[in-house]
């Protein structure tokens, strides 16, 4: 799966969609594929704060545990309960209905472009 060009990325395989001062965050198709079948997601609480490149959640597959790194500083304003109830959504639609959290950010750090992320994962 190619990485959508309208999104931003981190080297820890999160994607970020920016809309105003709200960032929607998920993990990339590449990360979901590497993890295998996702069976459990542990997301930060609404109202908690996130710090750039600090772990704020976990994504567990049958074989391993992946960490969710916050791509920016801010406050969690929404978590995707559909993914908590049906973790396989992360594999099925990582860039869409498999989103994980929405964060109202206070500053926007330098994130990777799709082309840069493609280069990092050897795709594109």
């Amino acid at each position, binding site marked *: 799966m190619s990485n959508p060009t309208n999104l931003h990325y981190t080297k820890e395989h999160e994607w970020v969609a920016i809309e105003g001062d709200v960032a929607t965050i998920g993990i990339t198709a590449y990360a979901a594929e590497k993890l*295998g*079948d996702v*069976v*459990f997601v*542990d997301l930060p609480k609404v109202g908690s704060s996130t710090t750039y490149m600090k772990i704020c959640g*976990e994504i*567990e*597959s*049958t*074989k391993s*545990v992946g960490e969710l790194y916050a791509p920016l500083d801010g406050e969690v304003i929404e978590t995707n309960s559909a993914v908590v109830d049906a*973790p*396989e959504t992360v*594999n099925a639609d990582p860039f869409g209905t498999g989103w994980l959290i929405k964060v109202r950010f206070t500053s926007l750090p330098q994130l990777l472009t799709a082309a840069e992320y493609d280069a990092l994962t050897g795709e594109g």
Partner: protein
Amino acid sequence: MPVRYTSDLAEHEAVRTNAGVFDISHMAEIFVSGPQAATFLDYALVIQSSAIAIGKAKYALICNAQGHIIDDLIVYRLAEDQFLVIANAGNREPVVSALKERAVFQGFVGVEDRSDDFALLAIQGPNAVALLQKITDKDLSTLSYYSIDEGTVDGVASYLCRTGYTGEDGFEVLIPADKAVQVFNALIELGIQPCGLAARDTLRLEAGMPLYGHELNLNINPYQAGLGRVVKLERDEDFVGKSALAELAKQEVSPVLVGLVGTGKRAARAEYPILSGENQIGEVTSGALSPTLGYPVAMGYVAKEFAQIGDEVEVDIRGTRLAMTVVKLPFYKRSK
């Protein structure tokens, strides 16, 4: 063998509900032959191989002089004077060396590592036997659990072994290495799901089967691992590890292997500490969110006083405590 072909869960489910095939060619095949083969194996392993009927198989352990486990094996009797020993891939060298060393004083016995000559395919699942039947000349209904016979699969001369490592019915098929791709593809064409290492691991875990390197290692004796029944101390002849094992059998061994179940969706994984209050009382050796059962299951070693069925413990999952209960193994048993 890859970790997965498509999806761990889909592969796991295929084996529980239909049929899957695993390429386990990495496992070691050691042929033990000669007029003294049975006597030799009686000395080299903890089981009584001489009591295995021709065409039958037995689960076995090879221990060192201290009674600790070098590997777990399956021993198949091919003929009066010929046995096939299947060992774990990672233990090929130690098992072959131990057997060869132990053969020195036995005379008239050949120990031949033929792992590179053979491919081994495991076909497992409730429909595995019926599907495999379509491409073999052998009437599979004549082979009961833990039996072996020769036959052809997709026209290829094979050994058909009714054994496995998934908790389901099925066969392990030993074929010449150069025919592996042909037979593997023929099995897939029957609708059998190719399965990887991840599914193999969750399947054997649900079935409560130990994995060397996790539940078994050189610091573990059979009594700790719940495998005391495999050791035949009552037989007259000596075998490697017998005196040490006889001592261990008399003692209260600790820690011991237990099965653990919890609630929720979070897995207690290998190497996570097992706690009682603030004290660490053991460690998880294998664990997953059981795909079949839907709750976390684990195996681990705990101190004897916490190892009774129904005992409550906790597992430290990266800082979060998961309450788990000691249960009888296996977690999953197929309906017959």
